[in-house]
């Protein structure tokens, strides 16, 4: 029995963190945001092997588990790194397991070596807003999918109204790939519009798309965990330095208790993220429910931490000075993306016989 990270896993996080500390610090982040170009940092992550994390060793990959990918997502969240990680390194490689070897090899190596990136258009599975809907006729897709992660990627995984999963390629007939501005400048998100667009069927089995939705959610959970832990650490560090009324503010009981409450909310989220990620590989009968609860619970805890850490920082938390708002907004993005808490809690109801 071992419910903790292995040395390899800790080493993986160390190496990612070290790289991001050097190549994706706040100053670089501001540049990414301004230029809208994070190619450089993604290339570096690819060099670290992030692109082939989930590829079986037989195929030349690292053969790691969902949990390992989640640990990388945690590092990315901690650094609010802009990358096409979820689509390119997680969802697309896993989706491609369901297709024949020819198609698989066409996309898999370019994904692994960073030549192409992948976007994720699954949000309608979690509840469609407005008129958004994608329908399939004879392997042609039409309609609209909103809230696509990395909509301008070279390939996009798309779920239809029957919960089938398709792959469309940039430049395909009738495909529009639009990026829309959100509060989170560290993420590329937007929509795709399709009009009789040729697409590759990945699987018509709803369980495939739903499983990938669960996995993407757990990646967001890990991202929030990393971002929230960063905010808590920043708040504690700031409170130990900042003086008011001749004391460091971290000696005021009110400030101490705010930090303690953040830690108390956040700490169990770590075990919850581990378990949810582990369950996706090892405990399939628990995986869906755990992913839902992790998505909702960690979003709530993250929202609390984001707000409280900002408060501990006082006015500085509200400004751009320490860039704290990038983490605040990333947590806000993760909360809504692929199912806000109310929606996934209602999904959790439907997954349980006892609740019927």
């Amino acid at each position, binding site marked *: 029995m071992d419910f903790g990270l292995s040395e390899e896993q800790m080493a993986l996080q160390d190496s990612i963190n070290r790289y991001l500390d050097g190549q994706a610090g706040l100053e670089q982040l501001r540049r990414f945001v301004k230029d809208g170009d994070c190619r450089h940092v993604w290339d570096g992550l690819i060099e670290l092997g992030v692109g082939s994390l989930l590829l079986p060793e037989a195929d030349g990959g690292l053969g790691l588990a969902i949990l390992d990918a989640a640990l990388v997502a945690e590092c990315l969240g901690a650094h609010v790194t802009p990358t096409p990680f979820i689509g390119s390194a997680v969802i697309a490689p896993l989706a491609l397991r369901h297709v024949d070897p020819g198609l698989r090899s066409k996309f898999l190596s370019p994904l692994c070596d960073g030549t192409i990136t992948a976007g994720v258009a699954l949000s309608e599975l979690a*509840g469609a807003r*407005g008129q958004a809907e994608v329908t399939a006729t004879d392997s042609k897709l039409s309609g609209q999918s909103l809230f696509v992660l990395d909509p301008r990627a070279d390939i996009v995984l798309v779920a239809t109204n029957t919960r089938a999963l398709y792959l469309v390629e940039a430049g395909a007939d009738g495909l529009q790939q639009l990026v829309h501005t959100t509060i*989170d400048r560290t993420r590329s*998100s937007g929509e795709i519009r399709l009009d009789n667009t040729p697409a590759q069927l990945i699987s018509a089995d709803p369980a495939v798309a739903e499983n990938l939705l669960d996995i993407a959610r757990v990646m967001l959970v890990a991202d929030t965990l990393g971002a929230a832990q960063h905010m808590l650490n920043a708040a504690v560090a700031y409170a130990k330095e900042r003086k*008011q009324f001749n004391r460091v503010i971290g000696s005021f009981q009110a400030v101490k208790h705010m930090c303690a409450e953040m830690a108390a909310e956040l700490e169990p989220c770590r075990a919850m993220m581990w378990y949810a990620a582990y369950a996706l590989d090892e405990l399939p009968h628990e995986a869906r429910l755990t992913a839902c609860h992790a998505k909702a619970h960690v979003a709530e805890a993250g929202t609390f931490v984001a707000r409280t850490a900002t408060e501990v920082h006082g006015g500085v938390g509200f400004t751009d000075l320490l860039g704290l708002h990038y983490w605040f907004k990333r947590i806000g993005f993760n909360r*809504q993306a692929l199912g806000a808490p109310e929606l996934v809690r209602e999904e959790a109801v439907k997954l349980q016989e006892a609740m019927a």
Partner: protein
Amino acid sequence: MDLSYGSVYETFRAEVRAFLQEHGHEAPTNQRDYRSEKALAWQEQLIKQGYTARTIPKKYGGFGAEPDILKTRIIADEFAAAKVTSGIGGQGIAMLVPTLLELGSEAQRCEIIPPTLRGELFWCQGYSEPDAGSDLASLRTNAYLDGDEWVINGSKIWTSSAHFADWMFCLVRTEPDAPKHDGISFLLFRMDTPGIDVRPLHDMTETRNFNEVFFTDVRVPAGQMVGERGQGWRVANTILGHERELLGDPNVALTRLNNLIQLMRTETIDGRRVIDMPVFRDRVMRIQGKVMAMRFNDLRLLSAKINQQSAPLARMIVKLQGTELRHELEKLAIDVMGEFGLAYGDNEYLRGDGLWQWNYMYYLGLIIGGGTSQIQKNIISERGLNMPKEPRVQAKAGNA
């Protein structure tokens, strides 16, 4: 208890409404337009009607009416209901003018109040400093007397309209050896005085809400001090409390609540309106209950003011509860919109001009600013509930 205003006031209300109906279109449509010809003309008309600067004496350019809290409220309510701007706002008219009336010299009153009321002089406030924060009185921007001029060095932060203000009213430390509250003076100066550098303070909303202002040997005539040397803290505090109440205006919260309910009627998830989803409905009803409670609390404060009764706790809690309520309300709106709630800037799916997200963040700023929630709770417990102060830590004791 009698919530009717009585016939005299209803007549007055009818007059205000009639004015708004006839002239409302003459007002500038942008509530923050303080500079255009239209804005200045509108301001002039409002003063003439007694709808702004109502109780300021005629000799200083006001309307010269006796204070009447209910009439003031009626004007505010009717202008808000008609969505017509009630004239030029800002800290000059709201804060400096009352301060000068109470503590300024006759010369200062005559020179400054009339053009300020007319909108010709627009003011910004220089109180907060980066290293002072909640401990405002520990400010360090200093001024020394050189001949008949004060020479100012230091910096201010959170100066909301510094980039378009003509003048600043400012707290500076002039008596470095006095206890911290006794070493501060209150100075007025032009923003185009040499040595003033205004830089935008970028904040999480991505809009320009605040500035930093840096002073390098800024020379100000000695006569531009309000009150005596070292009395600046008292001068500033004459009206500081008033500002805190403004942050929790329940009428604005009510407007936002009604907008939120409309939003819930239009947003859908899987084709179902959000307003038909009980979990969201329950959340908005909770907020409606809180807005009601704050509106009635506000009514109580209005009545107490009219009848010269005191309701100190009811007053002290307004900033804390009002800003929390707004933050919660705007947060619910974002949850109602889901991913659409993330839209910002030029996103074509933006709802309500993106104000939901903007307010969500801005109100977090207000929870922090103008006395953080932690400071508010200290005040409520110490002044409202007479609980003991925390044991003081001496300066440089280093026990932290």
